[in-house]
């Protein structure tokens, strides 16, 4: 059975387990890991093989050496498909891979059949297409929260790859990596629950209310663009057309009107609830449960109620 390469960046995330689960339907799963491999976890979800690549040539430069590593591996093992995460870096590696191999690619898939047919949600989640790579092998990036990860134990063989980065791969140096505050919350795009605040939250300090509810529900915090532009919350938490696309089990919109560009990033959520003082706010058109009211009254009461029930 042909190998299927699953490219793992920045440690094993939920999307990694989803990719391993999907990959099992297409062939024998091989993980390509940059940095230290979590062999136990990857094996638990069915990786038969793990290729690792590390060192200054991988860490010290932006993306390009990683694409070279994957391209070399593709040429050697002739995999049935290459899966990457639909993250900035995953898409960037995929882009370079497509050019190196003169191959098609599909981004943001939410499903992938055994024959390489990918399902993609397009036009802000309002339509679904099925597509196929018609030149070369399927190179597909998978969006987080697409499938439920399912374990399937395997004992992976580990092979360390030599990194042969070219001069062209070393044109962009990474001189510093800075982690900004995130705490213990789940990552926005992978979270099962997302609690977002909008302009209605009023100021940066009040976002504590949004964070409190998120923490009580075990969710991530998101924000509308108006909230981000007003400086209430950092940009990497923006949900919408020009921010992150999220598809959690539960999306809570607090003081968000529900503009089309905001919906673009959240309307495929399973369940949506909203608190807004304007009964006419468009967010109510997609909310499964809506409370028309002042979030400064409704949210603290809800938080108390959750604490009571715990």
């Amino acid at each position, binding site marked *: 059975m042909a190998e299927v390469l699953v490219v793992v960046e920045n440690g094993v995330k939920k999307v990694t387990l989803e990719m391993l689960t999907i990959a099992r339907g297409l062939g024998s799963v091989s993980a390509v890991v940059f940095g230290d491999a979590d062999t136990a976890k990857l094996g638990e979800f069915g990786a038969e093989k793990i290729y690792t690549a590390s060192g200054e040539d991988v860490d010290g430069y932006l993306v390009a050496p990683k694409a070279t590593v994957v391209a070399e591996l593709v040429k050697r093992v002739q995999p049935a498909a290459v899966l990457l995460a639909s993250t900035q870096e995953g898409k960037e590696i995929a882009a370079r891979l497509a050019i190196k191999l003169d191959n098609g690619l599909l981004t943001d898939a939410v499903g992938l059949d055994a024959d390489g047919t990918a399902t993609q949600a397009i036009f802000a989640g309002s339509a679904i297409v099925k597509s196929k790579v018609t030149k070369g092998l399927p190179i597909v990036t998978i969006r987080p929260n697409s499938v439920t990860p399912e374990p399937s134990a395997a004992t992976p063989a580990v092979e360390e790859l030599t990194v042969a980065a070219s001069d062209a791969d070393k044109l962009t140096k990474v001189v510093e990596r800075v982690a900004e505050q995130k705490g213990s919350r789940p990552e926005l795009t992978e979270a099962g629950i997302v609690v977002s605040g909008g302009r209605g939250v009023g100021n940066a300090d009040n976002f504590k209310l949004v964070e409190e509810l998120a923490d009580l529900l075990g969710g991530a915090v998101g924000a509308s663009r108006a909230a981000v532009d007003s400086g209430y919350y950092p940009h990497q938490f923006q949900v919408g057309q020009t921010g992150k696309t999220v598809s959690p089990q539960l999306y809570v919109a607090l003081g968000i009107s529900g503009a089309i560009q905001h919906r673009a990033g959240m309307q495929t959520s399973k369940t949506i609830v909203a608190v807004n003082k304007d009964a006419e706010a468009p967010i109510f058109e997609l909310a499964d449960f809506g409370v028309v009211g002042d979030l400064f009254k409704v949210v603290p009461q809800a*938080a108390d109620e959750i604490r009571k029930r715990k």
Partner: protein
Amino acid sequence: MNIVVLVKQVPDSGAERTLSADYSVDRASASNVINEMDEYAIEEALKIKEAHGGEVTVLTVGPAGATESIRKALSMGPDKAVHVQDDALHGSCAVATSKVLAAALRTLNADLIISGAESTDGRVQVVPHMLAELLGVAALTGARKLTVDGSQLTVERQTDEGYEVVTAATPAIVSVWDTINEPRYPSFKGIMAAKKKPVQSLSLGDLGVSAGEVGSAGATSQVLEYSKRPARTGGAKVVDEGTGGEQLVAYLATEKFV
């Protein structure tokens, strides 16, 4: 510095209503707009030209109708534009589009190429790295801050975890997010001046790209099925009369979230 800005025209996919405040200038006739992120790219190019001198060229690969977006881009201040248009381009995939952009860029000898981080229609975020790969130049993508010091570029690149500082020398391609600056509005003078700025039209033949490599004929992927998702419908809506929070939690409990 010779700067080329990549500008893509995208369908205004229902954003028209909310765009009205910002784009009241030409809203009635516009069903297509400049990809929003590319306006930040134009602004960044103009700022660099103002600080360091040079020339700014807009480059678009797109149908004849994209001229409208090109004129709008020029009205912000760039010096000239190159428009690659050819009937054979219809249906091009990202790989093919990048090949055409790369062919055009080879004729333009840019020190610096600036693009948007992603287009709002496809949201693929792949073109900048494809171009870097094709042209053999450095790519500094996802910039929220760009500093130019002679031929040395430093970018603060937004990541999920925070940011990275990356550096490279020109020639390079930089892609920008909307956090990098505040695009200027075209002035009346700018709009008038844009009408006279040179827009060079190039065909695939001019660039030595064969028609079979692009468009539907050369597509590297294919859509097999398309279906609209049923629109979401609103569910229960309660007005808070003192127990809104409790009612909300009761709902969350029935859905097993608490």
